[in-house]
């Protein structure tokens, strides 16, 4: 784990954050758990579901899902209050303290590890990798509160309608800044100036329909010559760019020098292109309409495009369940996106439930295709460890800042609008040979894979209650349960296998671990009984390919 110099980070965030979380329904330990019908098939299925649908299983969610079943677990997640990222930063600012990006990241980590509304937070994280803005952008870097507020749009919209979310992000000043729609102005005939195409292009390519026409199951449609069919050309990009003209910060008193605002952008009609526009799919805007109406009509056209459902379904499935969903799986989820059963198109809650409860997502390991599953994102491997073993910083401050330097990923810090990795990334070697894509492998190069292994070295061997050189910010795990199993190596491996790999360890892994652990006396390292053995097992399993991959 990378930890930067302490001064700025340790200032008083924790009280503000604790306050917020207390008010948001944290500390749900005493909550009674209802008894439900649709229970997971077995412990592996239960752990697998929580690996897919949260930042990792923890004691409470395991107990809840095990007794309440999928429907009630989902219903609870749907109705829990949203934990927002901006309020703790606003609380800091209200105390007159400076707010930096690391504070925003601290809040992200705290909510990922500790917030009760796990599914909502996980969905927001997935959406932040589709509707990308990044604090690596220089103007957003200077506005951590703005970044948190953008993230909160995704948190709040996580279970809403995608069309509404599209409009929110389109008018979000953070997106306006990131993809330069902010202050985008109409063509000035004498000057040769023309509208900026950035947002228009990426809105189509990355947020809604993609480059090529898709079948309802997400596969490429081909023309009679066997070639993919482009969804749009440069003319449509230019026309759409003209739709997105005249927008700037809300309440600006000057077009040239508008003051920063986090409210939805506002239109200045004199900078909006009033001419007719030929958009995608034959949609013709007559011109002269209000800019806000044109924006809505353009978003409608993209949202109604037949690509929209399969395009988004595949990306969401890749974030939660598997890198290589079958076409039928994509088609089933896309169908729910098209109609949630009540006639609504774009219902993200229904779409999410469909992808999590799909038979392909829930099939037991033995019935999966060999390529099923995904490489876990590095952030999720770390949150998974801490949630499983109650790893918490003693002072409440997660100093896991800017870990993208080492791990290739940090919240809202994508290197570009193309996210940390591409949905179609093919990794050299066995994966390419098997015809599988593996997005997360794009950030799993020789440097990062070793850095990730080293992150677990720190998280485990310097991360347990009783660690002699702990600092106030050390994340310390409570390994009481595991220590009780230290004398029974096979039981310990069963237990850790379930929590870290959502299933039994492979015989090969088990054999190596058994031999290694058996050679470690219970009092090894001068630590309390069993500690060294448990730490060794935790480290070796957490860094193993079996724990890196989610099946």
């Amino acid at each position, binding site marked *: 784990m990378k930890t930067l110099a302490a001064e700025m980070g340790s200032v008083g965030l924790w009280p503000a954050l604790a306050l917020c979380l207390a008010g948001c329904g944290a500390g749900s330990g005493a909550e009674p758990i209802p008894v439900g019908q649709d229970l997971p098939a077995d412990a592996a299925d239960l752990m697998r579901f929580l690996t897919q649908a949260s930042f990792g299983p923890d004691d409470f969610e395991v107990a809840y899902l095990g007794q309440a079943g999928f429907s009630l677990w989902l219903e609870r997640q749907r109705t829990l209050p949203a934990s927002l990222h901006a309020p703790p930063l606003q609380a800091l600012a209200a105390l007159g303290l400076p707010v930096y990006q690391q504070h925003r990241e601290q809040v992200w980590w705290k909510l990922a590890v500790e917030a009760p509304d796990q599914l909502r937070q996980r969905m927001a994280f997935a959406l932040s990798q589709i509707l990308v803005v990044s604090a690596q952008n220089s103007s957003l870097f200077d506005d951590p509160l703005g970044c948190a507020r953008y993230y909160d749009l995704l948190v709040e919209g996580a279970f809403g309608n995608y069309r509404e979310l599209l409009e929110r992000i389109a008018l979000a000043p953070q997106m306006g*800044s990131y993809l330069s729609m902010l202050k985008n102005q109409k063509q000035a005939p004498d000057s040769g*100036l023309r509208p900026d195409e950035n947002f228009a292009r990426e809105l189509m390519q990355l947020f809604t329909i993609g480059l090529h026409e898709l079948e309802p199951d997400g596969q490429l449609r081909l023309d009679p010559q066997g070639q993919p069919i482009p969804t749009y050309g440069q003319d449509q990009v230019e026309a759409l760019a003209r739709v997105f003209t005249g927008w700037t910060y809300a309440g600006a008193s000057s077009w040239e020098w508008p003051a920063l605002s986090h409210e939805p952008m506002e239109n200045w009609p004199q900078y909006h292109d009033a001419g007719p526009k030929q958009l995608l799919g034959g949609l013709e805007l007559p011109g002269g309409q209000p800019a806000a109406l044109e924006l809505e009509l353009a978003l409608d056209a993209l949202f109604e495009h037949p690509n929209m459902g399969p395009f988004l379904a595949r990306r969401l499935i890749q974030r939660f369940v598997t890198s290589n969903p079958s076409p039928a799986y994509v088609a089933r989820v896309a169908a729910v996106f098209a109609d949630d059963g009540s006639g609504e198109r774009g219902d993200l809650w229904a779409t999410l439930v469909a992808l999590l409860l799909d038979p392909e997502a829930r099939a037991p390991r033995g019935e999966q295709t060999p*390529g099923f599953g995904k490489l876990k994102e590095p952030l999720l491997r770390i949150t998974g460890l801490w949630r499983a073993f109650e790893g918490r910083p003693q002072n409440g401050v997660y100093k896991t800042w800017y870990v993208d330097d080492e791990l290739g990923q940090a919240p809202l810090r994508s290197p570009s609008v193309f996210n940390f990795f591409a949905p179609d990334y093919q990794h050299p*070697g*066995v994966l390419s040979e098997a015809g599988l894509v593996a997005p997360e492998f794009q950030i799993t190069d020789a440097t990062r894979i070793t850095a990730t292994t080293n992150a677990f070295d720190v998280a485990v061997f310097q991360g347990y209650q009783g660690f002699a050189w702990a600092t106030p910010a050390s994340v310390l795990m409570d390994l009481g349960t595991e220590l009780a199993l230290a004398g029974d190596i096979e039981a310990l491996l069963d237990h850790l296998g379930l929590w870290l790999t959502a299933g039994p360890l492979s015989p090969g*892994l088990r054999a*190596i671990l058994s031999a290694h652990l058996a050679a470690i006396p219970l009092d090894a390292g001068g630590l309390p009984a069993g500690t060294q053995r448990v730490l060794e097992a935790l480290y070796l399993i957490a860094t193993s390919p079996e724990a890196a991959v989610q099946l």
Partner: protein
Amino acid sequence: MQVNRFDRRTLLGAAALLTGFGLLRQSGLERLVRAGRAAWPASAPGAGQRALVCVFLKGGNDAFNLVAPYLGSAYQTYAQSRQGLALPQEQLLPIEPLSAHAYDLAFHPSCPELAQLFDSGRLALVSNVGPLVEPVSKSAYLTGSAKLPGQLFSHADQQRQWQQPSAAWGAPSGWGGLLTESLLGGPAPGQLSACLSLAGQNVWQRGEWIAPYAVSPAGVVSLSGFYGSLGQSRKAALEAIAGLASPRPLAQAYGDQQRQAIEQGALLEAALAAVPALATPFPSDNPLAAQLAQVARLIAAGGQLGQQRQVFYCELDGFDTHADQAAVQPQLFARLSQALFAFQTALEELGLAAQVTTFTASDFGRTLSSNGKGSDHGWGGHQLVLGSSVLGREIYGELPDLALGGAHDAGGGRLIPGIAVEQYAASLARWFGLSEAGLSQLFPNLSSFASNDLGFLPVPAA
């Protein structure tokens, strides 16, 4: 194209005096001779170690501001097209190519090092390069009769097209990796990849079996925390686990990558430890400089590693200057200029400068026209080639008409490339040692273009 140098210099000098801005930094026949090509081929291509370094300018470099016309009507045309993006005439840094071109060029004011490298013969400019399927005329483009690369103006697609052997390549491999494979022969198990990346995974360095090995600019990241005999036993267990065969390709791939990182990291670390510290200072707070500093060390370690051929990939990000171009561009260009200069200096210090050729690539050039804040995705753009083997101080290819609506404008000042990526790539690959037959094999569409050697590198002796 070649004109009498004295006439040309006289002309330049007069123009400079006339307008009062042109500081032709040095003058005199002596310098021309010193900069002449005769000085280099001491280490003529052929035997010995050789390295090819790709500097990918990510996001789409606005090359029409990296170098710009600085005289008379050519500057006026440029300024008219670029509007608020145009650089002030008096700040430009003129260069003196050995032959005359459609107009005179000057570097961006943030690039004095590049101007110096150019005028001292170590740097060449290749004009208006981009992905093509066939040569494209403006009329063929406008009437829709031209065969075009797919998804023009899209970042991801054009990045790939630049890195692959043709614009219509179907496999995930790139020409750097395939080139390396064809020179090395079959895979050698356990050996360090000759494709070393300072910027992680990339398409360019992938071959059929070769893959980039990622090195951090800070050096090799090695496994930490194995103290004492228990630590050693843990390390052995970790390696054994990574080496387990798995019926699941995802797990197998992860283990393969872990094992490769451990084994090859150890080889690399040992080799780098034997490299003496470089005296050449590299600028700090410059991500490209950090990468190239490490590349210089890896090249110095090439002998120790048993690598006769090395292929490096570096990136400088941030070139997608839709907004704030006037603020962002000077910093980007200063980083590029200072990093390349330090790299060349370091290679000269190592005595390896003739064995290393560095070239730039980028998603695309940008629109000449402005959106009021910056520029948009274009197509063709200029590229730089650096090294002591490079036939520098020269511009290769025809300089494009920079007028909006001009001869090369596909619309909005997106310039139709005059040179295809594979012509540029083939010129580099030939110097790297690929035969004529190998070139046609590597670049399947090369014969669609007039020349497969742009002439900026000497042709190796047969």
